[in-house]
C-alpha cells in the first residue's frame, strides 16, 4: 500500500531538513533550556523572597505567562521586542532582532514561568536546616542559594524539568506562525513544494519521537551521575 509513496523525497532533501530546519530547532531548544532555567530560577527566588515587590512581580509574571496561549506570546514578542529593543538602546526606529533571536527571547520568557514553578517546588523541598547550616557557617543568601539550596533543588527536580523540556521542545514548532523555518517548517515547505505531505509528516513525527527519546536517555544518565547518595 506504500506503493504510491516516495520516501526518497526525504533523503534528497535531508541536508536542508537537518542543516536548516533541525539546527534551528535544536539551537533554539538548547538556548531556551539554559536561559529559561536561569531566568526561571531567578523568578522562583523572587517569588519566595520576603521582599514584597519582588514576590508580587514574580507572581504576577508567572501567572500571566501561564494563563495565555504560547502562540499569543509569540505574536506579542514578535511585534513588541523590536520596540522594547529600540527603547532600551534609545533608537528612534524599531530594532530588527531577527527571527532566531526573537524566538529565543520569546520562548525563554515563556518557559521561564513554567521552570520557575518547578524550581520553586524544588527550593521548597530543601529542609530549612540546610539553609540554617549554610548561614551558621557564615554563607550569605547568594552563597547558600548557589552552593547548597539550588544544587539540591535542581537534582530533586530533574525528572520534572525533563518533562517540561520535552513539551517545550515540541512547542518550538509553533514558530511556524512567524513563517520561520524550524524543523517542522522545513518539512512543511518541502511537503508543499513536492506534494509529499504523508512522507514528510511521518518523517517529522519519527524524528521528534527519536529526539525526545534521546533527550530522556541523556537526562536519565545525567540524573544517575549527579544523584545524591542517601
Amino acid at each position, binding site marked *: 500500500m506504500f506503493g504510491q509513496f516516495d520516501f526518497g523525497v526525504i533523503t534528497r532533501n535531508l541536508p536542508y531538513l537537518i542543516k536548516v530546519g533541525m539546527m534551528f530547532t535544536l539551537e533554539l531548544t538548547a538556548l531556551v533550556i539554559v536561559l529559561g532555567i536561569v531566568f526561571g530560577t531567578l523568578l522562583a527566588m523572587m517569588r519566595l523572597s520576603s521582599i514584597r515587590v519582588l514576590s508580587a512581580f514574580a507572581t504576577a509574571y508567572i501567572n500571566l505567562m501561564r494563563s495565555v496561549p504560547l502562540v499569543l506570546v509569540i505574536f506579542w514578542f514578535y511585534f513588541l521586542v523590536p520596540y522594547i529593543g529600540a527603547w532600551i538602546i534609545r533608537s528612534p526606529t524599531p530594532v530588527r532582532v531577527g527571527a532566531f533571536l526573537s524566538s529565543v527571547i520569546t520562548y525563554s520568557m515563556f518557559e521561564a514561568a513554567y521552570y520557575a514553578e518547578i524550581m520553586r517546588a524544588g527550593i521548597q523541598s530543601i529542609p530549612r536546616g540546610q539553609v540554617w547550616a549554610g548561614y551558621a557557617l557564615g554563607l550569605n543568601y547568594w*552563597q547558600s542559594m548557589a*552552593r*547548597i539550596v539550588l544544587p539540591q533543588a535542581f537534582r530533586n527536580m530533574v525528572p520534572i524539568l525533563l518533562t517540561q523540556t520535552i513539551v517545550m521542545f515540541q512547542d518550538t514548532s509553533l514558530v511556524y506562525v512567524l513563517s520561520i523555518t524550524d524543523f517542522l517548517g522545513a518539512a512543511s515547505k518541502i511537503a508543499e513544494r513536492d506534494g509529499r505531505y504523508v512522507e514528510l509528516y511521518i518523517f517529522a513525527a519519527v524524528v521528534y519521537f527519536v529526539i525526545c527519546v534521546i533527550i530522556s536517555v541523556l537526562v536519565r544518565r545525567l540524573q544517575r551521575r549527579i544523584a545524591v547518595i542517601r
Partner: protein
Amino acid sequence: MAMIEIKDVSKWYGSFQVLTDCTTSVEKGEVIVVCGPSGSGKSTLIKTVNALEPVQKGDIFVDGVKVNDPKTNLPKLRARVGMVFQHFELFPHLTVRQNLSLAQTLVLGRAQREADERGLRYLDRVGLASHKDKFPGQLSGGQQQRVAIARALSMDPICMLFDEPTSALDPEMINEVLEVMQQLATEGMTMMVVTHEMGFANRVANRVIFMDAGHIVEDAPKAEFFGKPRSERAQQFLAKILHH
C-alpha cells in the same frame, strides 16, 4: 567580658511568645548545658545567639559584638560561631571533604588546598580521616554528627553552639559524639549545649540552665543544679529524666 551575653531577650511567633525576658551569659572557656521540656524554647534561644532567629526585645552580644544590630555583619559573625544541629545538616550533595572546605573557601577566603588540609586535620581529630571522600549518606548518624563538628571547628570558631546533637542518634552512637564534645570542652572551648544527656552535663558542664515555657527558670552551677534545684518544675524534670 562574657563570650556570650543574652540580656532580657523576648521573642514572639506572631502572638505566641516563645521567649520571655531570658538573661544569661557564657564566660570564655565555660560550658553551659541548656535543658527543659519539649517546646520550652531551647532551640529558639540557642538560635538567637547567631541570629538564625531574630529577637523582638533585648540584646545579645557575642565577643562584645551586638548580634541584633542591623549594622552587624552577620555572615562575618556567624563564621566565628560554630553550630551543630540535631539533624547534622551536612550537605548531602557534597563529599565530606567538600563539606569541610566549602565555608572556609567561600567565607574565610582560604585557598582550597589550605581549607582541605585544615578540614582533614579536624576530620582526623574526630577519627574519620579515612572517610574524607564519602558522601554524608554513606556514613552512620554518629559519624555524620562528628563530621558536622569537624566542619564547624574548621572555621576556627570562638565558641560552639550545640542543639541536641545526640537526640537523633541511635543509643550506641551517642557516646562517640559526646566524647568528641567532652574533648573539646577539655581544650577550653566555650560551649552552649542544648541536651538531655544529664551524664554529659554532670561530667562537663560548668552551669546548667533549665527552661520552661520560654522562661529561664533555673541558671545554676552544676553541683547546685543537680544537688537541689530550687524550682519545682526542674525537680520534676530531673526526676523524670534521671529515672526513666
